[in-house]
């Protein structure tokens, strides 16, 4: 993991691997995590690279959000992960099982995260524990492609919920209150909360796929 003094270099990496706004929809629609995908990725194929960064950026951000508080630290780990993955892929015989590309990215991320924890313990330089969370500045799918329609859909779903369910979601996700306490207050159990979220998510997913794209890699020859 680069130290804090390497920030300019890491920033360059961040620029290099950043998600390209407006290209997500097309880039998420094709490619398969197979030998040809990895070959295209290493060969500098732009569409494959966009797909790779868009697809894994989102997953890495979801994963890292539950572990790191600072958006800067999240972005650093994300970019470092991409850098290391590219580095390995570009070596001769880089990845023995191309179809396990996703698992490989996750493993690399875990290593980077581990180093991040150790680095934070030493200097507290990257993850600003206790610092207020800054608004996301990166260009993710929500901010770019059809963000308006997606926001509208979320609003529709929320408005259709009974007031109690809306308050429940607010207490859990926004106020971040203790789940058990919230359930007691609203007279529901954890299962109710899961089902509530599941239904909202399923309804939203239809719109999400429509605008952001379904990332399951299709066979390259399909």
């Amino acid at each position, binding site marked *: 993991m680069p130290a804090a003094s390497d920030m300019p270099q890491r920033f360059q990496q961040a620029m290099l691997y950043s998600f390209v706004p407006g290209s997500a929809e097309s880039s998420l629609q094709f490619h398969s995590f197979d030998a040809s995908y990895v070959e295209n990725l290493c060969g500098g194929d732009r569409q494959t690279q966009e797909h790779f960064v868009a697809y894994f950026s989102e997953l890495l951000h979801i994963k890292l959000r539950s572990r790191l508080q600072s958006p800067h630290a999240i972005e650093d780990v994300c970019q470092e992960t991409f850098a290391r993955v590219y580095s390995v892929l570009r070596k001769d015989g880089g990845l023995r099982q191309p179809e396990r590309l996703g698992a490989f990215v996750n493993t690399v991320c875990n290593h980077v995260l581990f180093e991040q924890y150790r680095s934070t313990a030493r200097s507290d330089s990257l993850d600003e524990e206790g610092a207020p969370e800054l608004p996301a500045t990166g260009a993710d799918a929500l901010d770019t492609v059809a963000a308006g329609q997606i*926001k509208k859909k979320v609003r529709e779903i929320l408005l259709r919920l009974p007031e109690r369910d809306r308050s429940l979601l607010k207490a859990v996700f926004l106020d971040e209150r203790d789940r058990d306490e919230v359930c007691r207050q609203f007279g529901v159990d954890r299962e109710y909360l899961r089902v509530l979220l599941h239904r909202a998510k399923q309804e939203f997913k239809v719109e999400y796929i429509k605008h952001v794209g379904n*990332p399951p890699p299709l066979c390259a020859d399909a």
Partner: protein
Amino acid sequence: MNHSEAFEQQAAERYLLNELAPDARDAFEAHIFDCPECALDLRAGAAFVQEAKIQLPAIAFSAPAPARAFKSSAKRSLWVSLWRPAFVVPAFATLLLVVIFQNVVTFPALRTASTQPRLVPLAPLHSATRGASHPTVTADRVHGVALPVDLPIGPGIAPAVSYSFQLRDPQGKLAFSAAVPAPVQEPSADQPFSLVIPDKSLQNGTYSLAVTSVSAQGEGTPVKRYIFDIVVTD
């Protein structure tokens, strides 16, 4: 974790709700990097939660207001419509007629019935004995019937502070229950009581009346049991 396990365990929802144990969380994360379907599910869920966090503060309490306003205005319009003259005038006229009828007809009749002396046929009654047939009491629907009941007071019987009566109708249901204090009198004679069964509640069939003496300690001792048939005549 494989796809079916993730689906069955609602892993995406648990992950978003931060309910997974560290091991399960790691396993699910490893899975989503390998399973595009679960990855899509989680991405959609995460995007929904993220956007909901932004919108909920504005929606959570502002949205129900119009609904409440609509509901209260609907309630108010219903309440107001109830006070329209077309509805209120006939309703009050009907209520007025009911009040007049009760005051002119019903209450005077009840008052007369309760204050005037009336004759009630007295039917002889004997306590039940093994093998004996039940006495038959004939009653009419106009007067009802009065049944003489003897309270056993005398030497050899524990002094009672009160007596309780339980009358069961032909269906075996408790039709009447009462308690009276034990009379103070010479210990040599039984104390007669009359049990009046009003005409309205009379029906053909076998009645039973149980008399229980209650001691000062609150202990109840059955002292007499009457079983009799009632034949109602019009």
